[in-house]
């Protein structure tokens, strides 16, 4: 029987059961970053607009598939619960931070892409700052956000995901800039590891949580 009086551990266990026990979150994360790793290739093939459309469609299909799997395969086996706001506080902070950063990125990208705002005078800063500083910031943010998630769920593997994906993205950008590699294979390897772990966790979930014959 799990720890009874440790409310914090019980909270973490609740989050794990509700969000991470089935491995779908890992699979989504892995595929999303795998798409990012081939983004420069598909962009060169399809052009910026159609590439954005294709990636958007692929991500939408992925989320729809995960939602279907959750309803059909996960919920009958694992059950459902509505956590109290306090139980999910750290997860909520991580989620809101991610949304905020995604929104800021989208706004800045739109402003620069449509030339509504002139691009910063990059010529005055050293080349490595121009190239890698944003990627270092992205890596640190990935580590921060995934560490928050890992801490709230008490899951060691998510700490590793943060470092893997952050450093993979940084290495891919460096290779792209200095060696001209279009395929971000360090990020693809990192995302592939996350994806494989997700698939393993999902299969384990299906084995350990058999579908009940008579539903409660």
């Amino acid at each position, binding site marked *: *029987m*799990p720890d*009874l*009086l440790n*409310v914090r551990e*019980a*909270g973490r*266990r*609740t989050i794990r*059961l509700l969000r991470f026990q089935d491995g779908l979150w890992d699979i989504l994360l892995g595929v999303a970053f795998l798409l990012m790793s081939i983004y420069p290739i598909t962009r060169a093939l399809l052009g910026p607009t159609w590439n954005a459309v294709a990636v958007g469609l692929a991500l939408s299909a992925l989320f729809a598939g995960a939602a279907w799997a959750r309803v059909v395969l996960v919920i*009958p*086996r*694992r*059950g*459902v*619960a*509505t*956590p*109290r706001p306090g*139980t999910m506080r750290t997860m909520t902070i991580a989620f809101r931070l991610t949304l905020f950063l995604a929104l800021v990125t989208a706004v800045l990208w739109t402003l620069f892409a449509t030339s509504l705002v002139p691009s910063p005078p990059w010529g005055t800063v050293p080349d490595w700052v121009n190239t890698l500083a944003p990627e270092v910031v992205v890596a640190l943010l990935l580590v921060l956000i995934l560490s928050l998630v890992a801490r709230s769920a008490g899951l060691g593997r998510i700490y590793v995901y943060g470092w893997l994906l952050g450093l993979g993205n940084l290495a891919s950008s460096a290779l792209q800039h200095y060696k001209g590699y279009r395929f971000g294979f360090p990020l693809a390897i990192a995302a592939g590891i996350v994806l494989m772990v997700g698939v393993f966790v999902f299969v384990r979930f299906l084995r350990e*949580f058999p579908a*009940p014959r008579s*539903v*409660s």
Partner: protein
Amino acid sequence: MKAKECGQEAVQALACIDRVMHEPARLAVVTYLSLVENADFVFLMHAVELTWGNLSSHLAKLEEAGYVAIEKGYVGKKPRTTLRLTDKGREALQKYRMGMQTALRATAS
């Protein structure tokens, strides 16, 4: 022993411990329910790692004490049992924790 007699003495504090709550499986059930607004039977069974029959019998006792509300309904054609900790249950858990702390402090001093 009446509530007002529950003092700081070890014996008094121990005598006031809620016997319904003072059972590991029921305490686990109440602890997990205190973290959620509501949960269904299957989720709780996995969370506290009890068998179907065992959880049912503990829930019956908790419902009898007024600590847990059990609602039976349907989602589509499938039956679903939804469980919720009542205000009385939440208060009893809080009292139980304080009572145990008092008793342990009293026995240690």
